[in-house]
């Protein structure tokens, strides 16, 4: 009884809020339309992966994307490292597919700018995404931050900065924050040379935070990428 | 003349075993000097000390008047040696072995010199065979070639005829004689065979359990005329005066109140006995002391 009442109260609150500055559904739809106008792109990127247990230098390469969920980082002769498929690096992947319920969460300040906050919940239970929270700059119609809760991979937070490709809702810089499991191999197998500072015992943590920073240098948008690009091996 | 080697009170022990005990001797230039003694007598240990392989506990070694431990490297330039077996690198040829050891003494040893010594030891034509394929005699000859290749004044050869057949022994013997006679080398040679010493050496030192028991010219040491004969006489003073004025005086070696020791050939014992009796001496007994050979045989058979 109390639960039902709480849900009703929430619904009333969100409904009231959505009327505060224009229809949240319309805003979401306009943004979604803007995001989905990009069917594919290839971009020169610089990628920096910052995970406690990973020491990876800045990677440069070509990032290919094809809607809805194909992505590949090409590094000629080198290795490419991307988070698992369900935590993709583009905004379009962090918005639930199909019918959604959009809930207005009012306004907030993000990096000194007033942004509209809304929560998007998929109507169907099938997908991996449970909830996406978006911080939207209404003026430029751009998502500045998203917080996506997934069924299997915890919460993924994305922060975006836009410049030259703002009209396509394609960011110049993206920082993805995610939850990661700890990593450990037996010392007897690796026979480490433990002379450096890492001799000090580390705090034991079950889960760790990590982030990936991507700088997009140059986009080529909607050139009709073939699927074969995504099947190639580096 | 200054001896080429002079050894003074040399001693060496290994753990509790005294290998060389207060040994002194000297070797004159041009001599073939023999070390005689059974196995373990201390011959090799002494030779090793002369070459700086073993460090003496006591005593001093002088070579050409210079103290050996002070100028070892300099003095070794004028010494060639084989100690025990002439072991070399089996996988290398005789030539390679000779070249390596020659170069260790003189990096500029010319190939002509190598050919020359190979000629002297009779290995010309076999120099390219692997050392492991050489017979024992060839190995010994190559060892001698290695010892003499840098034209040393002094050769130290430890049992160079060991393990050879009679013909091989004769060959090495002739070679050593020739090195002394024709090349003027001073040679220190060791053997456990008295006969061998007799044939090669001019002087000799007999070692037994690390101690010198005799040394001198081989001819003197092995001469029967030098046999010591002891006459036990009741009162030697009765005949002493006549004896000292007789022809036997030169054979008298030692005298005491009840004994006289003569150095003479055993054949002359009856004559001397008759003479003493004639002079009024009361002979209680006659004992001929062992000759060197007898003595050596007795010690090598204990």
């Amino acid at each position, binding site marked *: 009884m109390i639960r039902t009442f709480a849900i009703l109260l929430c619904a009333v609150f969100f409904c009231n809020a959505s009327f505060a500055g224009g229809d949240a559904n319309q805003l979401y739809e306009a943004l979604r339309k803007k995001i989905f106008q990009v069917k594919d792109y290839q971009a020169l990127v610089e990628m920096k992966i910052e995970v406690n*247990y*990973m*020491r*990876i*230098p800045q*990677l440069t390469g070509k990032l290919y994307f094809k809607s809805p969920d194909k992505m*590949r*980082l090409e*590094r000629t*002769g*080198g*290795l*490419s*490292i*991307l988070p*698992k498929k369900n935590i993709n690096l583009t905004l379009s992947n962090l918005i639930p597919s199909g019918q959604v319920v959009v809930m207005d969460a009012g306004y907030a300040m993000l990096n000194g700018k007033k942004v509209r906050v809304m929560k998007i919940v998929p109507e169907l239970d099938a997908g991996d995404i449970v909830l996406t929270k978006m911080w939207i700059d209404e003026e430029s119609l751009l998502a500045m931050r998203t917080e996506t809760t997934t069924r299997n991979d915890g919460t993924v937070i994305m922060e975006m900065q836009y410049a030259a490709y703002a009209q396509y809702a394609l960011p110049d810089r993206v920082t993805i924050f995610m939850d990661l*499991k700890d*990593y*450990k*191999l*037996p*010392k*007897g197998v*690796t*026979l*480490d*040379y433990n*002379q*450096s*500072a890492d001799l000090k015992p*580390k705090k034991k943590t079950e889960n760790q935070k990590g982030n990936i920073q991507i700088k997009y240098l140059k986009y080529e948008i909607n050139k009709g990428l073939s699927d074969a690009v995504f099947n190639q091996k*580096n | 003349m200054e001896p080429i080697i002079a050894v003074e009170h040399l001693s060496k022990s*290994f753990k509790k075993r005294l290998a060389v005990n207060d040994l002194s001797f000297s070797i004159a230039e041009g001599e073939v000097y023999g070390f005689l003694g059974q196995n373990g007598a201390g011959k090799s240990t002494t030779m*090793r000390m002369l*070459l700086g*392989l*073993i*460090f003496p506990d006591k005593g001093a070694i002088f070579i050409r008047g210079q103290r050996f431990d002070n100028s*070892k*490297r*300099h003095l*070794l*330039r004028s*010494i060639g040696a084989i*100690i*025990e*077996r*002439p*072991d*070399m*690198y089996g*996988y290398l040829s005789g030539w*390679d072995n000779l070249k*390596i*050891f020659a*170069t*260790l*003494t003189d990096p500029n040893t010319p190939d002509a010199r190598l050919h020359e010594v190979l000629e002297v030891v009779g290995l010309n034509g076999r120099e390219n065979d692997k050392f492991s394929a050489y017979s024992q005699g060839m190995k010994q000859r190559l060892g001698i070639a*290695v010892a003499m290749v840098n034209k040393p004044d002094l050769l*130290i050869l430890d049992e160079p005829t060991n393990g050879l057949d009679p013909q091989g022994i004769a060959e090495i013997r002739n070679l050593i004689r020739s090195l002394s006679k024709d090349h003027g080398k001073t040679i220190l040679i060791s053997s456990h065979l008295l006969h061998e010493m007799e044939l090669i050496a001019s002087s000799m030192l007999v070692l037994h359990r690390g101690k010198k028991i005799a040394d001198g010219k081989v001819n003197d040491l092995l001469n029967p005329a030098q046999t010591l004969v002891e006459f036990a006489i009741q009162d030697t003073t009765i005949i002493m005066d006549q004896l000292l004025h007789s022809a036997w005086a030169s054979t008298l070696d030692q005298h005491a109140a009840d004994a006289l020791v003569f150095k003479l050939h055993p054949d002359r014992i009856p004559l001397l006995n008759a003479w003493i009796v004639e002079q009024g001496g009361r002979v209680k007994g006659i004992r001929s002391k062992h000759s060197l050979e007898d003595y050596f045989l007795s010690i090598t058979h204990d």
Partner: protein
Amino acid sequence: MIKLLWFELYKIFRRPRTYISFGIVTAITSVIQLAMLSDGESFVNFAMQGINEQFEIQGRIMNGYLIGYIILQSLLIHIPLLVALVAGDSLAGEANLGTLRLILTRPISRHQLILVKFISSFIYTTLLIIWLAVCALFFSLWLFGTGDMINLKSDAFILILKDDLMWRYGAAFLFAMLAMTTIASLAIFLSAFADNAIGPIISTMGVVVVLTILSNLELPLFNLVKPYLFTTHMIGWKGFFDDPVPYEAIRRSCFVLVAYTIGFLGMTMLYFNKKDIRS
């Protein structure tokens, strides 16, 4: 001295036994390369389980650089044995053969002889490491191609870009030379006590194995002595595949290895200079 060294090397390289080491290095590297060619994928997947759960790595993981690293890691215990085979034989082998007494009747000092034995062992070690580099790295690059290298530590995943690898390998091989030179000096030291090469070779390996176990045991008692064991520092070459490269630690390891090498050499000279040659 140069002539003496020349003949020492001539003796080492005319001896068929010397080439066994080069053969063993070739054989071991070939076996690992073949195994990696046929089943490397599953080996890598097994090692990368923890990473693969969360990241998708595409590209030629099994490249020549990684195989080279795997080979170097596996040969950690074998190369010291091969070095000991020659260095342990240096004095004891001559004593056993009977040539030591012949050498020492020549006008060369015992210090000089030890130094020549050490330099020749160092040259042999260097050539062996160069051959290892050819087999482990260059053959692997030829067989598996190039690419970025993944280095898995017990608590870290390190990715090194392919253009950043060759100097690391060069430095690692130089470090390995130093580590193996320490082994050579230990083997020469033990060789000075014996008249038979087997003893010093086995003793050298015994020392290396026991100390390596101590270096790797995670017990507080051993943590006190670990920094002073040369075996702890022998794997310093791995530091060049870390990010960032722990230069300070590598410098410390180099210092320890050089100190041990000089120590072993000095003790050999002290002992051998007074040793009675009775062989």
